[in-house]
Every structure is written in structure tokens, then in C-alpha cells.
């Protein structure tokens, strides 16, 4: 065993004896020296984190999550509005052509059928909107 290996061994023995709080009466000078070093190294630093650090962090993170969720919700709402407006504009421009093209299916465009179709679309739209706006960000 070379000199460095011996010294590594002395360092590890000192650490082990210090952790087990063994009596140092029989330690040789090298191990005794390393025990002093192990003792100093095992002391926690004088500066500490605030005692409420964990709860403060948890609050900060949940605020962040809430802000993120709110932002996401607003973004989704804006996209939906943009999509709906585009739909209205497209219907305004091409609506006439569509009506002319659907003339052969006259029974479907009759008054009664049109009302039923509108009612179904309104139901679907309302449940979808209720689901979208009723959602709340997670805690």
C-alpha cells in the first residue's frame, strides 16, 4: 500500500470514528488530525434559510401556476373569438353561394328544418362554452 492509499485510509477511518463518536485515545496522530477535520466539516453552516422557506416557496409556486393557468385560459378564449369572427366573415362573404348551392336539397333548407338545425347547433355551442368557461385553474 503506498503513502497516498494509507492517507486515504486514515481519512476514511477518521470520518467513520467521528461519526460513531468513538473514543480517540488509541488514534494515531494522522487519524487524530483527520478527526478534527471531519468534525469541522460535519458542522452545519452558520447562515440558514428562513424557517418558513418551504411554505413561502409553495405559495410562490401556486401563485405562478394560477397566473399561468389564467393566461392560458385567456389565450384560448381569444383564439375561440378569433375563430368565431373568421367564421362569421367567411359566412358573410360566401353565405349566398352556399345557399344557392344547397337549393337542390330544398326540404333541408325549409323553415322547420332550419329551426331544428339552429336549435341543435345552439345546444352544442352552449354546452361547449359552459365547459370552456366553467373550468377553473388547479390549485
Amino acid at each position, binding site marked *: 500500500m503506498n503513502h497516498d492509499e494509507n492517507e*486515504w485510509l486514515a481519512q476514511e477511518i477518521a470520518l467513520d470514528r467521528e461519526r460513531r463518536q468513538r473514543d480517540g485515545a488509541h488514534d494515531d496522530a494522522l487519524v487524530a*488530525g483527520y478527526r478534527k*477535520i471531519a468534525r469541522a*466539516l460535519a458542522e452545519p453552516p452558520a*447562515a440558514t*434559510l*428562513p424557517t418558513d422557506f418551504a411554505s413561502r416557496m409553495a405559495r410562490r*409556486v401556486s401563485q405562478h401556476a394560477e397566473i399561468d393557468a389564467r393566461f392560458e385560459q385567456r389565450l384560448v378564449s381569444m383564439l375561440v373569438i378569433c375563430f368565431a369572427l373568421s367564421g362569421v366573415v367567411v359566412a358573410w362573404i360566401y353565405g349566398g353561394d352556399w345557399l344557392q348551392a344547397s337549393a337542390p336539397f330544398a326540404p333541408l333548407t325549409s323553415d322547420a328544418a332550419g329551426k331544428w338545425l339552429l336549435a341543435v347547433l345552439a345546444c352544442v355551442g352552449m354546452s361547449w362554452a359552459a365547459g370552456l368557461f366553467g373550468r377553473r385553474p388547479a390549485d
Partner: protein
Amino acid sequence: MKDAGNHEQDRTLVEAILAGQRGAFERLVREYQGLCWHILLRMVRNPEDARELCQETFLRVHQCLHQYRGESALKSWIGQVAYSMAKRHLERRRIPLAEPSGDQDGLAAAETVADSFDLVAILGDQEMQAYLHRAIDGLPPLQRTVLTLYHLDEVPIAEIAHITGLAEGTIKSHLFRARKLLREALEHRIGVAA
């Protein structure tokens, strides 16, 4: 088996946080704040900077938690985040990671002193501990951190290697050289005092 059990606990805690369970993240912070604090304080030394980095570390942990796959201990994973935050902080300030900080107390001169002093008998305990703490502060950031993780937090060498991204042999070498340097500094001090 113990590791597998610990990883299972880690995964359960992470799943609870990702599911938004109340109090789960606070539990994680409470569990690992000591480790992060030791890494950050030993690396950057300034308590104010370390406190700020500790907050940033846990914010980053929360943001990236979905990336944790349970392949390593959560402790190592969080330690890795803290270590990389501190490393980046030192790089921004151009502070070298593995070189002495310049205000070391006689560490270099210590090499000329012989091995055979009876350290225990000559200096008073308190004086010796205070001197040692100054000498530890004078070590390079990486060595200070490796020593603290190994001695104070009782983190095994393999896990320190994982946290720092260095090879186990490199960690052993840092441990060995830093402790030897401290012993020599102590002997030098005794030589001066005698």
C-alpha cells in the same frame, strides 16, 4: 431494494405534486432544502446570493418536475439542479470552480510542513475549529461543495458524481486532496503557533 423503495417514494411524491395535491410541493421543499442550501452556500459563499439561488432552484424544480423519470434518486436530481444553478452563477461572475479563491489562510505554505505533528495536543479545540472553518472557506468552490456533501450531508461518492456530473475517481481525488490540504494547513498553523 432500499434504493428501489426510495425511488418509489420519490415517484409517489412527484405524482402528487403534478396532480396538484395540496401540500405536496411544500413537503418536497422541506425534504430537500437542506441539501440545496449546503450546495449553494458552499459554492457561492454569499448567503444572500445563496438564498436567491435556492428560490430559483425550487422554481426550476417545479417547472421541470414532469421531466423526472425516477431513474435516479430525487435527491440527486434536485441536487443536480442546485449545482448547475450555482455553477452558472459562478461562471457569470468569472469565479473559477476548481481553483483556490485567493483568500486562503496559509493553505499553499502548508505543504512544506512534515506529517508527524500531534495536532490534538497543541491547539485548543475552539481555536482549531475556527481556523479549520477559515481554511475550508479558502478552498475552491468545487472542493468545498464535495467535502460538505460527503461529510455533512453524508451523500455517497457515486451520488456526488451524479450531482456534479464528474467521474467518481475525480470526486475521490478532490476529497483526498482537499482533506490533505486542510491537514497540512492545520500542521502549518501549529508550526506557526509553537
